[in-house]
Each structure stands twice: as C-alpha cells, then as structure tokens.
C-alpha cells in the first residue's frame, strides 16, 4: 500500500459528501425564509379562533413552533386549555 501511495500524486480528501450535506441543511433554512411571509403568526391566530369557538382558550397559552430538520420537519402546536373549575391552575394540554 505504501509503495502504491508513493507513486500516487497526493490527492485532496473526498469532500463532496460534506458539500452535499451542508447545502441540504442551509437551503432547507433559506427556502423557508424565502417563501416568505412568515405564516406562523397567522396560523396561530386562525387556529386559536377555531378552537375558541368550542372551548375558551387563553391567547397567551398557545405555542406554535416549526422545527426544520435535515430529513423531517415538525410543526408543533401546543394549546393549553383551562380546566372548567376556576381554582384548578394546572391546565390540560392538547397537542395537535
């Protein structure tokens, strides 16, 4: 092996896979911000409106999160529903 290497010109390391992986990640992020107007606030508002028709919800206790992964992206919506009894402080969480 060393003899073979001796006759071979020194080559740069194989780096194409790194190029591909880095591009996939950076473009996934850039495409989101490019597609522009951030739809999350609107989505949150509309979701709350729908849910508020059926149960009373606290506008401040809704969390909408978008997590861009390499393979899978998740949209996480968490709305805390107040218990019917007023003294109950712990809410029921509905995850969609």
């Amino acid at each position, binding site marked *: 092996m060393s003899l073979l290497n001796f006759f071979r*010109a020194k*080559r*740069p390391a*194989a*780096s*194409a*896979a790194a*190029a*591909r992986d*880095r*591009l*996939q990640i*950076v*473009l996934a992020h*850039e*495409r989101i911000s*490019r*597609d*522009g107007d951030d739809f999350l606030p609107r989505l949150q508002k509309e979701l709350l409106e729908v849910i508020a028709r059926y149960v009373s919800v606290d506008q401040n206790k809704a969390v909408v999160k978008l997590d861009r992964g390499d393979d899978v992206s998740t949209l996480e919506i968490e709305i805390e529903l107040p218990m019917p009894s007023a003294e109950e402080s712990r809410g029921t969480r509905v995850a969609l």
Partner: protein
Amino acid sequence: MSEVIVVTSGKGGVGKTTTSAAFATGLAMRGHKTVVVDFDVGLRNLDLIMGCERRVVFDIINVIQGEANLKQALIRDKRVENLSILPASQTRDKDALTQDGVEKILNELREMFDYIVCDSPAGIERGAQLALYFADQAIVVTNPEVSSVRDSDRILGVLASRSQRAEQGRTPVKEQLLLTRYDAGRVERGEMLKVEDVQDILAIPLLGIIPESQSVLSASNQGVPVILEEESTAGKAYSDAVGRFLGEDISHRFMVAEKKGLFSRLFRGAA
C-alpha cells in the same frame, strides 16, 4: 409561437455567456430563427464570446431610448444562418434598462424570431430580474460547487415568485438545469458534487452536463461559440443539450471519467 429563454445562475463566472452563445448558435444551426440578447448592461461580453465585438454599432439601450431601431442594433452572425445578436451597452448605467423598454423589445423580437435567448447578468438585482421577468423557459447554469448551487436555488426562488408568469398566475417558467465544468474524474474520487446530488438539491430536470474542457477557453479566445468546436467534448455536450431542449431523446454523456492509460497517468503532470 416564439419562446423567450433566460440563461441565468445567480452566481457569476459559471458559464452563462458561454452557454447563451453556444445554445443560441445550436438552435440556429438546427434551423430556428434565433437571437441572443445580452442583458449585462455595463459589462458587455456576449459580443466577445460571439466574436462580433468589432461590429457593434448600436446596443439595447440605444433601442430602448429611441436612438436606433431594433434592426439597426441587431448583428447577424456571419457563420450561422438564422442567428443574430443584440449587444448590451458598455458605457451606460444599468438603470437605463427599463421593464417597459425590455418588454417592447422582446415583443418586437418575438415577431422576428423563434427563440430569444436572454443572457442574464450575475446577481439577483434589477438586471438579472429583468432578464428573467418575461421568460417562458429558464436554463439554470450551475457548477458542481456549493456557492453556485446555493445561488441557483436562490434564482429558482426568484423565477417562481417574481417572473411575469408567476405574477400573472400563468403556467410557471419551465426550469432546466445545465451543469457546467463537470469533472467526472473528481466526482469519482469524491472531490466534487455528483450530478445526482445537484439535481436532488435543486429538484429541476437535467438539460445537460457540460464537462470541464480546455476548448471552452480556446473558443472564447477566438470568439467562436464552443458548440462550433464540434470535436470538443463541451461542443458535443452543448449540441446534445440543444437537442434535448428541442425534445429529442438523447442520453446524457460525459458522466464517467475517461479511463487513462498508463502512459498518460505517468505523464499527467506534463500534459
């Protein structure tokens, strides 16, 4: 029905002008009336690549500003029938290019030609946006290299949102990928992005692969569109791409490195 084709990339130096010249020449060689328009106002270069730099009298800005009519500004190619060039201005400011002016010229060109090839400037500013705004088809020129792929992705976003077709809600601009400066040997050694990787990332159909080739430089030195260097790999690859563009079924070549003999291996450095 004539078609407006924009040759675009976002990044500079990837081969837009080389491609515009080769592609327009290829379309004309196949009998289609073709004009190639330089949109790079202030940095005119298509005339040099086409070898007609000494015949430029009027340019696109002269036409827009009414100082010359379109027929006066068009330069007919001396080698290929059916081929004309509309040069950009070298002296004017790029703001002289207006959307109304471009639209008027393109409408006039549509009456005269089957294909209008628009050589876009680099970047995503006004000049590049005007070059792609009226396009029916886009050839996205990309090198197998991270910054070029990223910029191509960006320009695809512009095509999808800010072209006239997008704004009017018509059928989107047809986008195709042309991968240039491809070195199959380096790809095999894992040093360069594979064509499949680039296609995967950009997610548009592949029009062609143009191998890295010495003849591109020598053709540009002489002002000859490289497609006329019929023996060169780049010339053949462009010719294939034009055929595919016109709907011919041609399989991709130059994806595999040529096997070198012992002799050329030993003397690689000297060659």
